[in-house]
């Protein structure tokens, strides 16, 4: 036993703000299985991933217990209370009750990974200074057993001064009932008044806090002494006198920086506890060791990295095609069926050209998006994504960033919004902002529909060696996004965001076999989000565009009378010319021709221009808008949207979608920031309008200029 654990604090001494229902904070190291446990306990769906810092949002859930219910707050994974990164500060602020809209939790459920109790116990010892009722969930018990680690839970409980420790397995659910039972009584759990790892600091802080009065809690004094909270440190200096604080620090920390002294002291204690409670301490985990060695060996790893990327892009095209053909066929058949049943009128056009052609043209990309997400989820959950940051640190250094920016940039392949939130693990503010501005360049899943549409329509489905040309072009577009992102980071880091060289240090997760259920839930979530957008935002836009394109109706008799006799001989020609003329005098046509001059230098006609403009709030809308425009104004003989695009002509008969124009359009989409959600996230994360405005202006400009140069130069050749 260690000293200082006998004294227990009275339960009545604990401040409870939530009388009706306790709020418990779920806290632990990144990758400790916190989010999985949260899912298990609350039954709520939410995303979990296998790399540090992904649980960036505040997740709330309710745990139904036998006699009551508690609310559980899932906090970002952290290693210490030092508040070095934005994520850590959020977790610390919530735990300490400094977060404005979140009440201070009345208890803590600390999650410790049984295979990483070294770092887990360090955080726990820091948390004990909060003097909140605390219990421990020891997760990954199966993995520990598989690695020959056995932990004496009772001995651990004793070493911690009586804090209950519940071994659980989130995979089998073993131990969860006991844990829930423990949660029922969590607020009456006793914590040692003086945690065992650093009694001198606890006692000193306690007596200083008592001396200063009710405004000061022990943890405040500790954070002030350790300088982890600069504001409190300043206040302590004012109240005690600078000399007294210096004296306290030198007694406690000697000459060392406070944080270093704390690490030495507490980890020294943890090391001894591990020797007491754990039989076998491997230096490295057996399971992942073999894999890790290979996947992080420099050259095999680099080859593997590119092979994985290529596989993803190939799969997105080749695996999805059969399913997409089915959806495409079904939606055009449905449209035709409606027209034959209802005849040619406003209502049938509304259903067929507005709803089905608009929304259907986006839904068709569901298979591709699911395949892309399947890969990203598997890469995340195996821990591979985090490991690439080790691999890519060198590359990132050349643009002034570190490997730490790799995870947000790679997850941007799925969506820039969570990626921008994931930049919270980056310690330096300038490095973080540079990464935030680089992330939207990465090809997100919403760009996939427009890429896929244009590639399928204009790139032949040929084989180049063992690869497919369409997949190769898609890979090129991803590279274009990466180049744009890295170029932007380099530009910013050598101008506006110039700063000290970022350091790179990161705890790397093990390789884990992804849990099938978790992968399925995440994939389902992604599909649901995509379909929900198609059913709401895109649905509304498609209807709006249909109304603008369908009305006002022109006078058909008058139109026909203007046609010459020779034009009237071929009925199909008359129909085509008539629908084109109708489209051109519709509201959409009138608006489109107003904005056409802006985009004419890029080779876009008014239809493409208005679709692109409509896509500024959310880029996948552009496909829906094109779907509706070309359905309302289409020739009778073309069925699929890509056929309609290929057939589109300028009034003088020239083809609109020429190779330079299509390439320019692709470049525009690769670089342009057409996503209101991303802008809102940048605003929230940087806490200023300056960066979202800059990002939008900058990306729109280079997208436009890129498309302009390619079209103009390409047309000369």
């Amino acid at each position, binding site marked *: 036993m260690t000293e200082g654990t006998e004294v227990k604090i009275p339960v009545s001494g604990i401040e409870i703000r939530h009388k009706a229902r306790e709020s418990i904070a779920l806290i632990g190291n990144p990758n400790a299985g916190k989010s999985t446990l949260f899912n298990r306990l609350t039954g709520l769906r939410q995303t979990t991933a296998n790399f540090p810092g992904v649980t960036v949002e505040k997740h709330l859930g309710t745990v139904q217990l036998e006699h009551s219910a508690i609310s559980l707050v899932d906090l970002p994974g952290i290693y210490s209370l030092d508040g070095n990164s934005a994520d850590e500060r959020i977790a610390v602020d919530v735990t300490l009750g400094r977060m404005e809209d979140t009440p201070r939790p009345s208890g803590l459920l600390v999650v410790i990974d049984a295979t990483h109790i070294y770092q887990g116990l360090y955080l726990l010892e820091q948390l004990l200074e909060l003097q909140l009722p605390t219990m421990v969930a020891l997760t990954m018990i199966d993995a520990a057993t598989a690695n020959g680690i056995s932990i004496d839970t009772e001995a651990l409980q004793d070493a911690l001064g009586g804090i209950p420790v519940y071994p659980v397995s989130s995979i089998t659910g073993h131990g969860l009932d006991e844990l829930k039972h423990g949660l029922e009584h969590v607020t009456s759990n006793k914590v040692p008044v003086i945690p065992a790892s650093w009694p001198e600091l606890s006692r000193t802080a306690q007596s200083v806090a008592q001396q200063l009065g009710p405004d000061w809690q022990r943890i405040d004094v500790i954070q002030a002494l350790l300088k982890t909270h600069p504001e409190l440190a300043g206040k302590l200096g004012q109240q005690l006198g600078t000399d007294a604080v210096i004296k306290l620090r030198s007694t406690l920390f000697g000459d060392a920086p406070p944080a270093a002294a704390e*690490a030495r002291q507490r980890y020294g204690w943890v*090391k001894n506890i591990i020797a007491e409670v754990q039989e076998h301490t491997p230096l490295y985990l057996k399971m992942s060791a073999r894999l890790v060695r290979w996947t*992080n060996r420099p050259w095999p790893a680099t080859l593997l990295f590119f092979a994985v990327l290529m596989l993803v892009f190939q799969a997105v095209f080749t695996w999805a095609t059969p399913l997409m053909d089915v959806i495409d066929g079904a939606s055009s058949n449905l449209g035709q069926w409606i027209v034959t049943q209802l005849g040619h009128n406003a209502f049938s056009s509304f259903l067929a050209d507005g709803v089905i052609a608009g929304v259907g043209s986006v839904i068709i990309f569901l298979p591709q998006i699911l395949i892309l997400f399947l890969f990203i989820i598997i890469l995340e959950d195996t821990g591979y994504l985090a490991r690439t940051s080790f*691999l890519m640190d060198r590359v990132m250094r050349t643009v002034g960033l570190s490997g730490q920016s790799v995870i947000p940039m790679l997850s941007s392949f799925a969506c820039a919004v969570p990626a921008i939130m994931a930049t919270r693990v980056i310690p330096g503010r300038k490095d973080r902002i540079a990464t935030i501005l680089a992330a939207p360049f990465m090809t997100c899943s919403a760009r996939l529909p427009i890429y896929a549409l244009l590639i399928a329509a204009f790139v032949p489905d040929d084989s180049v060696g063992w690869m497919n040309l369409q997949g190769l072009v898609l890979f090129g577009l991803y590279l274009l996004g990466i180049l744009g992102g890295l170029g932007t980071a380099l530009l910013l880091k050598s101008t506006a965001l110039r700063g000290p060289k970022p350091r790179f240090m990161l705890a790397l997760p093990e390789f884990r076999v992804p849990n099938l259920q978790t992968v399925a839930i995440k994939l389902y979530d992604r599909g649901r989000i995509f379909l929900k957008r198609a059913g709401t935002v895109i649905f509304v836009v498609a209807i709006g565009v249909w109304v603008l394109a369908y009305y006002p109706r022109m006078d058909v008799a008058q139109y026909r009378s203007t046609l010459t006799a020779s034009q009237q001989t071929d009925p199909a020609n008359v129909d085509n010319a008539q629908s084109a003329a109708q489209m051109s005098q519709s509201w959409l046509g009138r608006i489109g021709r107003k904005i056409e001059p802006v985009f004419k230098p890029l080779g876009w006609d008014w239809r493409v221009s208005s679709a692109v403009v409509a896509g500024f709030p959310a880029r996948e809308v552009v496909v829906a808008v094109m779907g509706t425009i070309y359905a309302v104004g289409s020739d009778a003989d073309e069925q699929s949207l890509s056929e309609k695009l290929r057939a589109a002509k300028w009034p003088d008969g020239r083809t609109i979608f020429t190779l330079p124009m299509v390439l320019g359009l692709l470049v525009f989409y690769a670089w342009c920031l057409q996503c209101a959600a991303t802008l809102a996230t940048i605003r929230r994360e940087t806490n200023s309008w300056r960066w979202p405005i800059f990002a939008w202006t900058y990306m729109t400009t280079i997208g436009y200029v890129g498309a302009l140069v390619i079209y103009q130069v390409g047309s000369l050749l």
Partner: protein
Amino acid sequence: MTLADLTPGDTAILEQIDTSDPGVIRLMILGMVENITVRLENVAIGGDPLEVGFFGSSVSLRKEQARHFKVKRIPSSD
């Protein structure tokens, strides 16, 4: 000898840590303190960054910080 001088597969004890670099303190917070045994697991292309394993965990760091860790190499048993 420092952590930066080890070759992959080497095991060593951290003997003395120079805390003048704030990055080193971050590594100490992750558990790299004196008197623990570490193993150099991997070195990326170009010799930097390094991956160090200890107590079942694995941490990646740059050579610049690794130089601040004086180590004593443990001769391998095989």
